[in-house]
């Protein structure tokens, strides 16, 4: 057991899989010699060689297309997109190819890729270093989408993603790489070293895809969250004193609908939070799921707390970010709403 920051836990997962599986290769922009702009592959080229960990040309479409071909050959590529904001040039290979290969070839060819990318804001990255495009991936049949909120989960989920025989999009909340975050940028961050969930086993372990985790048990309202918003939701619950049950979804597809149903059936109230823009965000699918599964349990309308339907602004990012104040206000509203 070692305490690790989230980027270190991610590196540990990749390291242990490179060690276990000779067919695994790692590549992307600046991931080789340099070790990645967020250091997630630091030292791995030195340890495993250029044959298995290397830099690529700057072409997200090329990176994913190459990975699809390598997967068809029988390798297990783990690629990094430097920021999720730059995945769009690679979407055709991801949607039309990686996600379709098994289906259209009736299993003759498959694409066991893992596509890692940092998501979310809070680092003054402006509109092209802050996006959260998870909703797009979850609309694509044939893709799985995973997003951790702690170093422990990051390692266990990433190992499961790499071992999965289908393409998995692995989203890394960049605001959490170095520490837990309660949504208050002015407060000093709690480094993972001082956080219980910063304890990460050194050995190999996996967390199955599709199982949510209850971060805070509560009786009055269910908060569905993932990634950076999990810590924000916990902070909002603490501040408002609302007895919220904070469900960390961890995997968006497959989705742990049983855990969602259990919690909302109990609380009868639900607040859904994400950092992405609201319209057609993953919160919409969650809201649909909850009302399909729990309609007769719902006491009050489900609420969404999300990023605004605008690009992520640079200077005003904390007015954009759905912080504890906004989540707290929603918690109060659902508690006070007429039933």
């Amino acid at each position: 057991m070692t305490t690790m920051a989230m980027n270190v836990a991610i590196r540990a997962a990749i390291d242990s899989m490179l060690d276990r599986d000779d067919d695994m290769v790692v590549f992307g922009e600046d991931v080789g010699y340099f070790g990645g702009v967020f250091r997630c592959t630091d030292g791995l080229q030195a340890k495993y060689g250029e044959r298995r960990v290397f830099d690529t040309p700057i072409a997200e479409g090329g990176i994913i297309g190459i990975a699809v071909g390598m997967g068809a050959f029988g390798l297990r590529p783990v690629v990094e997109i430097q920021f999720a904001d730059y995945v769009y040039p690679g979407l055709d290979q991801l949607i039309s190819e990686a996600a379709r290969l098994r289906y259209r070839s009736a299993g003759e060819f498959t694409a066991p890729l893992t596509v890692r990318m940092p998501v979310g804001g809070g680092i003054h990255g402006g509109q092209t270093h802050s996006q959260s495009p998870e909703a797009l991936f979850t609309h694509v049949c044939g893709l799985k989408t995973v997003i951790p909120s702690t170093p422990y989960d990051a390692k266990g989920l990433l190992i499961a993603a790499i071992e999965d025989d289908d393409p998995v999009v692995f989203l890394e909340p960049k605001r959490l790489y170095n520490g837990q975050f309660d949504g208050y940028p002015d407060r000093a961050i709690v480094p993972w070293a001082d956080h219980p969930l910063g304890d990460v086993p050194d050995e190999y372990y996996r967390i199955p895809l599709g199982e949510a985790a209850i971060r805070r048990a509560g009786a009055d309202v269910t908060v569905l969250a993932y990634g950076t918003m999990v810590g924000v939701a916990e902070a909002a619950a603490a501040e408002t004193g609302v007895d919220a049950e904070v469900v960390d979804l961890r995997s968006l597809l497959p989705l742990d609908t049983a855990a969602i149903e259990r919690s909302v059936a109990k609380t009868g109230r639900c607040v859904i939070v994400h950092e992405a823009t609201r319209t057609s965000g993953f919160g919409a699918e969650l809201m649909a799921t909850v009302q399909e599964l729990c309609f007769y349990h719902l006491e009050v309308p489900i609420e969404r707390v999300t990023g605004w339907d605008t690009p992520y602004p640079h200077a005003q990012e904390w007015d954009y970010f759905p912080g504890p104040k906004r989540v707290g206000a929603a918690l109060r509203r659902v508690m006070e709403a007429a039933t």
Partner: protein
Amino acid sequence: MDDVGDPLRFHVPAPSARPGEEPDFSYLTIAGPGETRRPDVDVTGVEARDLADGLIRVLDDDGLAVGPWAPDIDAEHLRRGLRAMVTTRAFDDRMLRAQRQGKSSFYMGSRGEEAVSVAQSLVLAEGDMYFPTYRQQGWLIARDWPLVDMMCQLFSNEKDRLHGRQMPVMYSVRDAGFFTISGNLATQFVQGVGWAMASAIAGDTRIASAVVGEGATAEADFHHALTFAATFRAPVILNVVNNQWAISSFQGIAGGDESTFASRAIGYGIAGLRVDGNDYLAVVAASRWAAERARTNHGPTLIEWVTYRASAHSTSDDPSKYRPRDEWKAWPLGDPVDRLAAHLVAIGEWDHDRHEALVADVDETVKAAAKEAEGYGTLLDGHLADRRDIFEDVFAEMPAHLRRQRDEMDRLA
């Protein structure tokens, strides 16, 4: 600062002939048979630049093999290639007819281009992987892949290994080294490079060969393929089938009026060959050269196959709307089947009667295969793949939400 002059003009390339006009292929630069040099396979891309403007041809007007590219190849092999091309053509004709009869929803013919896929299929080794477009059925036929299996895919019947999921012609035949065809243009081009890089990473000996049409070279994945192939010296053959047309747009719309497609290789330091795609022996020779180059760690080769799409783009297309009806007849590089047959005759390995017999035999074979395949079902009789297969193979294991949806479908039935 410059002083500002006349108004700018907008240039839109125009084909040499439109419907009603005389076909005109004077825009093609055609080197004579044997004229284009043949460097060793370890030549660098920079040293090979001139080949991108040449035209590798082997067969002369008398049907004899001439020049440095004349391959060492026996008549038996050539007759096999001839049979495969004749079979491909008969297969196309029959399947086009079947589509008109409503037995399949769609078809795409390869008339005039058969040599490009057939010859390379017989050159590459077992285990190599071909990343085709929808017009390389010749590859499968050359490898004697069962015609019945191909037809079952076209008819989407119960024996279709792809469970009716894919449109006709979108074959996937791993055992014949034939990668699953995508409906999205050019995606396979970079995938082939990735497959080849993987083979190198694994220290394997297998190489890849990827195909794209001249029109689809404009897609991003063409550039991705060349960039990655060059940077990592991938053991791959990058085939550009320049059949002059991309549905209704002629090769100039893809930039072909400004420079050859083979020359696209130059800027990446990749060796680029321009080859007569209707000259079976030239296709063999250039494919061998590129394959040896790849297999001996000398890197990728881009080959522009100069040919002509004699068929309509697909059964949804009517070429008479955008090109002279008889343009194919004026094509200066002839018909690959006739030219190979003429060569075999010229070297005393073939004659008229044997050809007649071949055609008749092939027609019988195709007819028999069609009869059998139709027996398993066609779009007409509705003996189609099972509806429950819709939900298979989306993932390795079917997740809960797909099981729920399948149950929902079952309840409705």
